[in-house]
């Protein structure tokens, strides 16, 4: 087994998606046209960002059937299969924040936090709601004006402008101000996918019997509040809704105590899932 196979696969999907957007504009390929707010797959299937559509509803737009179908496809896909896989397998900003997390691991000690991290993990849900209200006030989808996801994909598929400034700011914020600052605390799109994927099937499973409590997974996990109640405490699926299914914990575990599995479908030995609570 290749050591970082999930990491490599994730980079391949992220870069492939960006490349398809790029080639749609510059080579006229009709495989995946648009960007991550809305795209057309094979020139027929609409795919829409549910949070963008939700903001448009709040802004008072007339929602076309394309958007409804597109958003439902995405909600069904991540709701059943993916969980927050969008964040780690699709979103290109993840490449920036992962790089920032790597820089941070090389340069910082856990105690060097400028802002205490755990307490404000819930901020994104408040921000999500505030931006919806703001969309209603300003009469346009407010987050789309500042969304680094939109800026990044548009920079690749269309033109860059000053988008790099905002992307650099996110890198610096994550690397030197707050650990996993953007994706783990602020991004309302990630918060939206947490909610959409809260009951998803593919989940990481932890086997307590194999765990040696080395802590490698907790160190690498970008959302380690989902791991900490379970690791070395019980054999269970990682049910926390903020898990991005990135698979880094599986890769760093030398004891095979973590693996991808199917929640509800595959019954694990010694599983103690009393109930799946939304956190």
């Amino acid at each position, binding site marked *: 087994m290749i050591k970082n196979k999930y990491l490599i696969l994730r980079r391949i999907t992220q870069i492939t998606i960006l490349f398809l957007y790029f080639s*749609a*504009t*510059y080579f*006229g390929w009709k495989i995946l*046209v*648009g*960007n991550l*707010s*809305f*795209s*057309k797959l094979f020139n027929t299937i*609409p795919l*829409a*960002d549910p949070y*963008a559509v939700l903001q*448009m509803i709040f*802004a*008072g*737009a*007339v*929602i*076309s059937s*394309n*958007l409804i179908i*597109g958003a439902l496809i995405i909600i069904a896909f991540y709701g059943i299969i993916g969980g927050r896989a969008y964040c780690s397998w699709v979103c290109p900003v993840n490449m920036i924040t992962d790089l920032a997390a790597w820089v941070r691991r090389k340069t910082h000690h856990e105690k060097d936090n400028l802002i205490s991290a755990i*307490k*404000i993990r*819930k*901020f994104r849900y*408040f*921000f999500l*709601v*505030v*931006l919806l*209200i*703001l969309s209603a*006030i*300003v*009469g*346009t*989808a*407010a*987050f*789309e*004006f*500042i969304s680094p996801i*939109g*800026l990044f994909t*548009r*920079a690749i*598929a*269309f*033109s*860059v*402008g*000053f*988008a790099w*400034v*905002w992307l650099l700011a996110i890198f610096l914020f994550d690397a030197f101000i707050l650990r996993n600052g953007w994706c783990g605390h*602020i991004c309302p799109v990630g918060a939206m996918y947490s909610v959409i994927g809260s009951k998803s099937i593919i989940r990481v499973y932890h086997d307590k019997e194999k765990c040696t409590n080395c802590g490698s997974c907790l160190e690498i996990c970008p959302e380690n509040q989902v791991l900490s109640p379970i690791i070395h405490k019980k054999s269970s699926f990682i049910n926390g809704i903020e898990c991005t299914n990135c698979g880094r914990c599986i890769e760093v575990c030398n004891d095979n105590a973590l693996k991808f599995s199917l929640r509800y479908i595959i019954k694990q030995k010694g599983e103690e899932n009393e109930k799946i609570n939304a956190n």
Partner: protein
Amino acid sequence: MDRRNFLTSAIQATATAVVAGSVVGAFVEENKNKPLTLRPPGALKEEEFLKTCIRCGLCVEACKNRENKFVEDGKEIQTLFLAAPGDNAPIGTPYFIARTGPCFMCDNMPCVYACPTGALTPEMCKNEKGEVSIDYAKMGVAVIDPSSCIAFWGLQCTACYRACPEMDKAITIEWKKNERTGKHAYRIPVVHEEACTGCGMCEHACVTEKPAIKVFPRDVFLGKAGDRYVKGWDKKDEERIKNASTNTKTITPRSKKSAIQNLNEGVNWDD
């Protein structure tokens, strides 16, 4: 976590989100008000457009890979762009710059039909009979600056007239005697807004260093006479008088008195 702690952190998180939200809101308000932005054909009114556009760029892609590509000086002219930060248009929305990339008015309107949200719609490219055509698009209106237009100096030009896809409808040439020389004619371009699509071919073709004819969004340039002024010689236009408000009073302290009182004030009638 006890209740006090829970309440405190909930209030803190809400307050932080509102602070962040108001910063975003201020930026959005500043960024969305760009009245000089030229939109693709079939765009809804700017306010509705900003609500409805999801910033996917399918129109830009359709424009870039359209059939009637236009090459100038060995370089393909790109019309539509998706606004990046710093482009002086609301971020992520499509726009064009007439001077460098005018709209070539494709008959099949690929950009309009590419739009998945209805922010660009054939409904906005209709004439009174309900026929859809790119000729009925209203992207903007051309405006001439007579001080820099060389036709107004008496020079022979007509570049805009010949570039116009709606030639003899949107731009006509008016002949006038040149009194300065006494034996030449002015050939002056005149824009007719009702036929002008705002494609910008005239601005693109204009020979002066800075274009003397420019395209502006219709809301920015066109005035409105209102219901009080009608063309009495035009039966159809005269119907507008029915909408005119009769409530046109100006109230001043003198208005309290009747007209007769006002007229007769200060006059002493002898019995």
